[in-house]
């Protein structure tokens, strides 16, 4: 067993790492909205503008077999819209592809 006090510890390790390989900063909000009848709409807000959202939406549409668009918003920037309740799908996909860390995802709605 090693002595804990003598371990070298780099206090800046976290800071260096996060600045290196993380494009995404801030929370990504995944929301759901009810439409007419049983239809719903999933929006993904807060993805970093350095990502190409059009490519993301293209991949998502194929993956989840739904339609989707990228909407420009003056305050929130580019927002992804997907048809249907894709909250779980999009969360899994974003983390799996390494675009967003799980702790940065915030799912809203019921």
């Amino acid at each position, binding site marked *: 067993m090693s002595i804990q006090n003598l371990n070298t510890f780099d206090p800046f390790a976290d800071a260096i790492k996060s600045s290196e390989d993380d494009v995404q900063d801030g929370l990504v909000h995944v*929301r759901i909205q*009810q*439409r007419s009848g049983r239809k719903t*709409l999933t*929006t993904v807000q807060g993805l970093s503008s350095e990502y190409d959202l059009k490519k993301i939406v293209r991949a998502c549409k194929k993956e989840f077999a739904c339609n989707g668009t990228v*909407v420009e*918003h003056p305050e929130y920037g580019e927002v992804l819209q997907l048809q249907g309740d894709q909250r779980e799908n999009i969360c899994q996909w974003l983390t799996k592809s390494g675009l967003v860390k799980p702790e940065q995802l915030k799912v*809203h*709605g*019921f």
Partner: protein
Amino acid sequence: MDEDMVFDPSLKKKKKKKTGFDMEAALAEQENTSAEAPAETGDVDVPEDDNLDLDTFGKKKKKKKKPFFNLEEIENALPETPPTEEPEPQEDEVIDDLDLDIDFSKSKKKKKKKNVDELPTEDDVKGEDQENVEDVHGDWIGSDRDYTYDELLERVFDIMREKNPSMVSGKKQKFIMRPPQVVRIGTKKTSFANFTEICKTLHRQPKHLLDFLLAELGTSGSVDGNSQLIIKGRFQQKQIENVLRRYIKEYVTCHTCRSPDTILQKDTRLFFLQCETCGSRCSVASIKSGFQAVTGKRAAIRAKTA
């Protein structure tokens, strides 16, 4: 099986004690008590006793009634036990010592058990305190042996319970809420009937909860005359419950100690959660509905703006 194990040592003890003359009177009582509480006797030497010990933790609290008796008897017993050893040289002294130790602790425990049986549980705090001190001392009087883990554990738990009476019940007070009553109105609207009631139990402004609910659900709604909340869209009770849970987690329970006894204050445009239990104060996220996609008829919007 347990009982067998337990009975063995006690039997031995009786044998030994009977060799001593003066002890018999005291012994009679001990026998009685041992008969009463056979499950508790083997605490020190039997390894399977962990369970027993744990089970009895709750009881031990109440047991601190008459250690006076205990002490006197033990002190009587202690000087007298050496003579019992002398006339009985057949057994090893080491074993004797061990047995004595065991007897000692046992007699104590038996006493405690007996007390539970006999006495009503209403101990006043003061008396408890006094007795507790004596009890603690009584544990270690007259012996310079190593304390067993069980004894030390028991002791520390006794102390904890004494200082922290709320822990006695063994569980934290749970935050109990009535479930939201959610009823569909027509096909497009949902009514949240006990909305104000829930706000009251949470000690939050109805407006704050309303803002949160509407922002999370991404709809619009209002409180009507019967103090029920009408939300646009179809929602089930489970879904509303889910959102309420999230609200409570973020805006009601203290982030440090998780106590629901908190106050939400607005301070320079930010909401702060002040805990009444632990005194911590931390800022909570502001409620934002964020991006809202167009779900209605675009023509209607155009007509409105134009």
